[in-house]
C-alpha cells in the first residue's frame, strides 16, 4: 500500500503542477533565507563608513554552503525540489549582490575608498575561495 503513494525515493508523487511546486519550494526557501539575512542585518547593522562585516559574513557563508550543497548533491539522489528550496531559495536569498554593490558605492561615494575596495576584494576573493572549499569538503565527505 505504501508503495502506491511513494516513488522509488520514498517521496510522494507530485499532485500539483511541477512549475507550481518548484515556485512553492523557491518561495519557502526564500522565506528562510531572507528571514535569516534580515535578522542578521537588523541585529548587526553596518555603521556609515565602517566595514560592512555582516554583509561580508552572510555572503561568504552562503558561497561556502552553496559549494558544499551542490557538491554533495552530485553524489546523492536529491531531486530538483531540494535545489529549488536550498540553492535557489534559502542560499540564493540569504546572500545578496544588490546590498554588496550598494555598500561599495556608498563607501566610495562617502570618501571611504579603501574600505570599499577592501569589501569588494574580500567578498570576491573570499567568495570564490570558500565556494571551492565547500565543494572540496562536499566531495571528500561522501
Amino acid at each position, binding site marked *: 500500500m505504501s508503495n502506491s503513494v511513494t516513488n522509488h525515493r520514498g517521496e510522494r508523487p507530485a499532485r500539483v503542477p511541477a512549475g507550481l511546486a518548484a*515556485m512553492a519550494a523557491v518561495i519557502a526557501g*526564500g522565506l528562510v533565507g531572507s*528571514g535569516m539575512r534580515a535578522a542578521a542585518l537588523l541585529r548587526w547593522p553596518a555603521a556609515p563608513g565602517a566595514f560592512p562585516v555582516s554583509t561580508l559574513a552572510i555572503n561568504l557563508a552562503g558561497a561556502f554552503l*552553496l559549494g558544499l550543497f551542490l557538491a554533495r548533491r552530485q553524489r546523492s539522489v536529491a531531486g530538483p525540489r531540494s535545489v529549488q528550496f536550498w540553492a535557489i531559495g534559502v542560499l540564493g536569498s540569504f546572500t545578496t549582490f*544588490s546590498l554588496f*554593490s550598494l555598500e561599495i558605492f556608498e563607501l566610495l561615494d562617502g570618501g571611504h575608498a579603501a574600505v570599499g575596495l577592501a569589501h569588494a576584494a574580500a567578498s570576491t576573493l573570499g567568495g*570564490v575561495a570558500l565556494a571551492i572549499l565547500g565543494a572540496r569538503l562536499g566531495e571528500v565527505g561522501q
Partner: protein
Amino acid sequence: MTWVVATVAGSLGAALRYLVGGAVQRRGRGTLPVGTAAVNLTGAFVLGVILGTGHSGWPWIAAAAVMGGFTTFSTWMVETVALGVVPRPSLRAVINLYGLAALGVLVVALGYYSTN
C-alpha cells in the same frame, strides 16, 4: 515588523529571480551565466534608485528587501568557480567575477544619480 516585511518581500524577490533568471539564461546562447548577471545588475540598479529617492517608508523598505532576495551572491560565486578558476583562472571567470562586481557598483551609481 520590519523583519516580517523584509522576510516576505525577500521571498517574493527569490520567486522573481527564479522566473527572470531562468528565462534570461534560456535565451542566452553563450556559456556565461547571463541569468544571474541580469538579475544582479537589475536588482543593484533598482536599489540605487531607491537609495537616490531618499524615501524610507514601508513601501521603500519592502522594495529594497525584494531586491535583497532578487539578487544573489552565492550563485554568482559558484558559477564563477564553474567557469574555471583552478589552477589558473579562465578569462571568462575573471570577467564574470570582476566585470560583474564593477558593473554592480556602476549601476547602483546610475540608479542613485538618476533620482538624486
